[in-house]
């Protein structure tokens, strides 16, 4: 839903890291060598010197000479062109054959398509060298056989890639839309499919070039590739290898050239591929810096947060000076739209803010204790967390019961059998039907609602003081959502724990929670009892949010309210009220000066110049 936080496609660029630069430089040098090598050293490479046959390294011949007295350094430098050209030829043959094979299934009738796909799948698994040897037998020893063989080895990979890419694009919504608009097949291919698959194909071409070069070198090294009087690096190595016991340096030159070329192409290909790939962000909790105690502790609260700030390098501050407290048996709802900082607030409280974010606070206390001083065991049993996607929150490789029992085994030293018994009891407590059998199943065997129950049961394995639920029902159907919300309420009532419920859905928050905290651009803009939400909300943002939410009584004859503009990104929050640019009531003061959160009636607090 709105919480996926997916980054939009970004403009790609190659990050010029050191390996990328090294790769580019090496490949560049190889290209230059291929052009000028034979021109400069061609004569020296062919000069036969009967007086200097089979020599080792000397000042005159730094890499020694061959059996005709020819200078090996010159021969290595000259062989670059042939080696690269053969690799290029093999790659182009392979790529062409592969792209044709890969597009055939989309043109052929179903039977033929399956045959081609099956053949490609079978060939992909075959090591290139085996295919190359097959063709070497058929086509005979020599460069032609080797190039055809390596080309044949490259083709299946290209075919597979083309097929997958084309299938992905062809299955996309924008191609479906184009088809419905009656855009001709040909145009769909040229406008939609090809532009979106060309880039990865070209990238693969660059990477295959390195592979082809190594493959050809291998074939020549075995004596199955280039034959005299022609020579490539592999052939030079073939000639030099038997002399390795006496004069190792004669094998060194061609070996180094092959290695360098392989490394260069690989580093460059890597960098290009990395630039093309959109790697998803990964998370990790930082060590929360210990806070200085400030103000008077609230004796009644289970969770006390004061002046919580989450900052990322570059000045982005998604959570700014947030304070809240939750009493035992109370569920506080934290509501806001995507980008409001509500989920990061939950992560900060759980100590799960992703690196490189840093968390600062004046006070962060759980059950009267500073979280920074709590041990892993204390936190692990006192804090229960529930996330949006219950399938992702359970380890797919482990059985449900084992995952629950683990908490007791690790933190309380409970025996395995006893921990399992307790796990089954907790699964029963969250009304999972047949908990004994379910505990022996893997997460994928449970329905979405059952999984979320299991996650909640996991939180109950310890003695939870605080249950943090971050969009726990967003991925669920409404009927299941209601059951899970009921369960959360029951669990909080039963355990006397405090509940912190994070959601984008103000109706859900209003229905479940006792108190509601509304966030906008990293700050709390209003805090009020849930039963005042419908009629008593004071902040213009809260009011607009409620007004834009259709419910079952909304007047259908009038347009639905909306809020113009967008919420500012964390790095773009100005000095004044962050909502001012979208607010109908905003005055000059609002954009210049930020309103503090102040009391508004007995149980309500609002941060707005126009209200208070």
């Amino acid at each position, binding site marked *: 839903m709105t919480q996926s936080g997916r980054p939009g496609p*970004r403009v790609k660029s190659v990050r010029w890291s050191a390996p990328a630069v090294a790769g580019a430089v090496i490949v560049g040098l190889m290209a230059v060598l291929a052009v000028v090598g034979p021109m400069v050293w061609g004569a020296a490479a062919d000069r036969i010197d009967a007086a200097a046959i089979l020599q080792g390294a000397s000042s005159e011949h730094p890499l020694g000479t061959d059996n005709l007295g020819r200078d090996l350094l010159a021969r290595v430098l000259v062989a670059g062109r042939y080696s690269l050209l053969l690799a290029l030829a093999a790659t182009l043959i392979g790529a062409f054959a592969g792209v044709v094979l890969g597009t055939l299934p989309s043109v052929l009738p179903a039977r033929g398509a399956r045959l081609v796909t099956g053949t490609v799948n079978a060939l992909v698994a075959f090591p290139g060298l085996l295919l190359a040897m097959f063709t070497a037998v058929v086509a005979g020893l020599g460069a032609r056989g080797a190039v055809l063989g390596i080309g044949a080895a490259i083709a299946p990979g290209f075919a597979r890639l083309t097929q997958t890419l084309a299938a992905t694009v062809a299955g996309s919504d924008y191609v479906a839309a184009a088809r419905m608009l009656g855009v001709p097949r040909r145009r769909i291919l040229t*406008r939609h499919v090809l532009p979106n698959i060309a880039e990865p194909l070209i990238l693969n071409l660059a990477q295959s070039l390195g592979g082809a070069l190594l493959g050809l070198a291998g074939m020549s090294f075995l004596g199955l590739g280039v034959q005299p009087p022609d020579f490539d690096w592999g052939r030079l190595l073939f000639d030099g290898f038997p002399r390795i016991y006496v004069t190792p340096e004669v094998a060194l030159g061609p070996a180094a050239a092959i290695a360098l070329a392989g490394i260069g192409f690989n580093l460059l290909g890597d960098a290009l591929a990395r630039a093309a790939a959109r790697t998803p962000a990964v998370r990790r909790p930082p060590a929360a810096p210990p806070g200085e105690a400030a103000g008077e502790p609230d004796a009644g609260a289970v969770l006390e947060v004061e002046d919580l700030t989450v900052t990322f390098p570059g000045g982005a501050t998604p959570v700014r000076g947030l304070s809240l407290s939750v009493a035992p048996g109370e569920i506080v709802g934290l509501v806001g739209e995507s980008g409001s900082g509500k989920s990061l607030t939950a992560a900060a409280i759980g100590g799960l803010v992703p690196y490189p974010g840093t968390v600062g606070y004046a006070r962060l206390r759980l059950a009267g204790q500073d979280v920074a001083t709590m041990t892993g065991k204390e936190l692990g049993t006192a804090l229960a967390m529930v996330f949006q996607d219950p399938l992702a929150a359970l380890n797919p490789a482990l059985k449900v019961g084992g995952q629950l029992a683990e908490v007791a085994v690790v933190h309380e030293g409970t025996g395995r059998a006893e921990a399992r018994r307790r796990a089954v009891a907790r699964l029963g407590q969250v009304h999972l039907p047949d908990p004994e059998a379910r505990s022996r199943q893997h997460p994928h065997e449970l329905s979405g609602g059952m999984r979320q129950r299991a996650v909640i049961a996991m939180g109950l394995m310890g003695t939870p003081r605080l249950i943090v639920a971050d969009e726990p029902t967003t991925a669920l*159907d*409404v009927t299941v959502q209601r059951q899970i919300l009921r369960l959360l309420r*029951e669990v909080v009532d039963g355990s006397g724990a405090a509940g912190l419920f994070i959601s984008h859905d103000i109706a859900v928050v209003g229905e479940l929670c006792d108190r509601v905290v509304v966030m906008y651009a990293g700050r709390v803009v209003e805090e009020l009892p849930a*039963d005042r939400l419908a009629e008593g909300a004071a902040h213009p943002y809260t009011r607009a949010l409620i007004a834009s939410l259709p419910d079952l009584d909304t007047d259908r004859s009038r*347009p639905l309210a909306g809020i113009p503009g967008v919420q500012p990104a964390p790095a773009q929050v100005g000095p004044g009220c962050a909502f001012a640019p979208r607010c109908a009531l905003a005055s000059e003061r609002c954009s210049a000066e930020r309103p503090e959160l102040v009391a508004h009636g007995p149980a309500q607090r609002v941060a707005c110049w126009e209200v208070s």
Partner: protein
Amino acid sequence: MIIRNLSVRFGAFTAVDDVTLEIPDGTIVGLVGESGSGKSSLARAVCGLVPHTGAVEGARRVQMVFQDPYASLNPRMTVAQTIAEGAGRKEVERLLGLVQLPVEFAGRYPRELSGGQRQRVAIARALGGDPGLLVADEITSSLDVSVQGAVLNLVRGLRDELGLAMLFISHNLAVVRYVADVVAVMHRGRLVEVGPAEQVVGEPAHDYTRTLLAAVPRLKGRTGLRE
């Protein structure tokens, strides 16, 4: 137009089971159901995107707006190119106006737009295909609430302005009730109830509709969800 005896089967599984539904011009028919109810399969079948049996009669052309505005626009085409595919270059300005986007957006790429703006572009593209029926599949469920309202208003405005027939699909009963004239409730591949929006919500006839209604979270008359 009318959808007659439409069924969709995937192997042994029947996703849509003999659905008949009428969508008159100038009417928004809201289709509501939970995941796995078959509502998206029905939408795709009506658009001819999945094999089906039965007929879609009376609609000249069917166009669709998809759930995910990030995936439904070709990242390598500008807004103008996208819209022009169905409508032609001359129409781009008019269509942008219809979905209330400024003309300057014509040269932009999808990555430069917000979710709500992308969804407007997708609607403009569909309108450019001169649809006899517009199918909107969960078009607001990946948008923030504050943006959703404007898109829903747009949808209703287009119905009035163009006399569109629209099949509006959503899991959210409140949204469907607000935007649709007729509400159809789908459950396990079948339509269990069809009727005027106020009637289906006010006096539900089918048990499943009642279950669905009872589950909708609401601000007024909150219970705290204690048993």
